């Protein structure tokens, strides 16, 4: 019986010693051990982490759906065009112009600059010149120039796109194989410029 009482006393003493030690370390400001470290902002930490992850996922989904919507609404892309060239990239990462009837008729003249289209490798923007209701010139105001490869691709692609636009007298043109991003950005910006010309009454549809 006395042995049991001694054991209980000993355990009690040990517990009291541990409690005193933890109180002493807390009051003297010594760093808490890893097991007793507290995070005063624990709830805020979790909130910040959840918000960051949710925002990343949400933004990714937004970018993907925006590109998907733009790509599926495009009627001007040639479905047989080859997107295989890796130098300019391929896929559905660039918005494309909506279909529009060919510009025809009208007697106005003027210059119109289309909207800037963000592509994977940089912005694309074109301006058009209209004389007597006809497209007479298409100029690439901005093309991706972040790397020499893009510059080379665009130098080859933009004259082809310009020629096609002048022949079609609209944004209904084929993409240039190997320059998919530039082509689709070009088409969208061109469509924007044509829409402005149409709004100004310079170009009227047939």
């Amino acid at each position, binding site marked *: 019986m006395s042995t049991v009482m001694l054991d209980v006393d000993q355990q009690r003493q040990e517990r009291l010693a541990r409690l005193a030690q933890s109180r002493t370390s807390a009051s003297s400001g010594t760093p808490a051990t890893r097991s007793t470290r507290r995070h005063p*902002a624990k709830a805020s930490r979790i909130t910040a*982490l959840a918000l960051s992850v949710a925002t990343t996922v949400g*933004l*990714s989904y937004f*970018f993907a759906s925006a590109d998907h919507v733009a790509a599926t609404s495009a009627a001007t892309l040639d479905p047989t065009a080859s997107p295989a060239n890796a130098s300019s990239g391929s*896929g559905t*990462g660039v918005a494309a112009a909506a279909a529009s009837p060919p510009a025809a008729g009208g007697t106005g003249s003027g210059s119109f600059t289309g909207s800037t289209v963000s592509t994977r*490798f940089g912005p694309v923007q074109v301006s058009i010149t209209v004389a007597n209701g006809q497209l007479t010139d298409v100029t690439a105001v901005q093309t991706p120039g972040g790397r020499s490869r893009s510059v080379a691709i665009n130098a080859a692609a933009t004259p082809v796109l310009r020629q096609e636009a002048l022949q079609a007298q609209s944004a209904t043109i084929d993409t240039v194989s190997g320059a998919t991003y530039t082509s689709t950005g070009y088409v969208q910006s061109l469509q924007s410029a044509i829409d402005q010309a149409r709004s100004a009454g310079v170009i009227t549809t047939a």
Partner: protein
Amino acid sequence: MTSLWWYLARSSGIVATVLIAATLGWGLIFSARGTGRRLRPAWWLDLHNWLGGLALAFTMVHVVTVVADSDLGIRLVDVIVPGTASYRTMAMALGVVAFELVALVTLTSWRPLKARLTLRVWHAIHLASVPAAVLTGLHAYQAGTDATRAAFKLGLAVLAGAAVYPAALRVLGLRRSRPA
């Protein structure tokens, strides 16, 4: 699949930029003793440390996704050594330097490493968080695919403005504490 990397790179870059600005602002408010009475300084410091770690984590995600995107053609060395990228060389260089500064500031504040530094040395390294944030903003403006969007520009302007207030708080606090 390459498009997925591109979307993640853009979104993680935007989130990392916001986190870096938030961490800087939080730290400046805390060091200026502008935490007010409602929330304890321990809460501010704890959240500041956490935001710094999150900022580094999302910056790492951004770097990994950019390298993983094969269409961009960015190599591992391009995100380590500034000035070696062929894609938007200057903008990439700014981003690489910003990333390395953020990593340096965050890792030296990690308890095991911080214990090995003197307070003066740690503080001097920690001041690099300010140029890190500035370079991050410049990188986002120059290299970001979304930099042409008005909403993106507005967001960057708001972040810059939100960082100026605590910076002013800190500078004014320094001036008041100096002897006449």
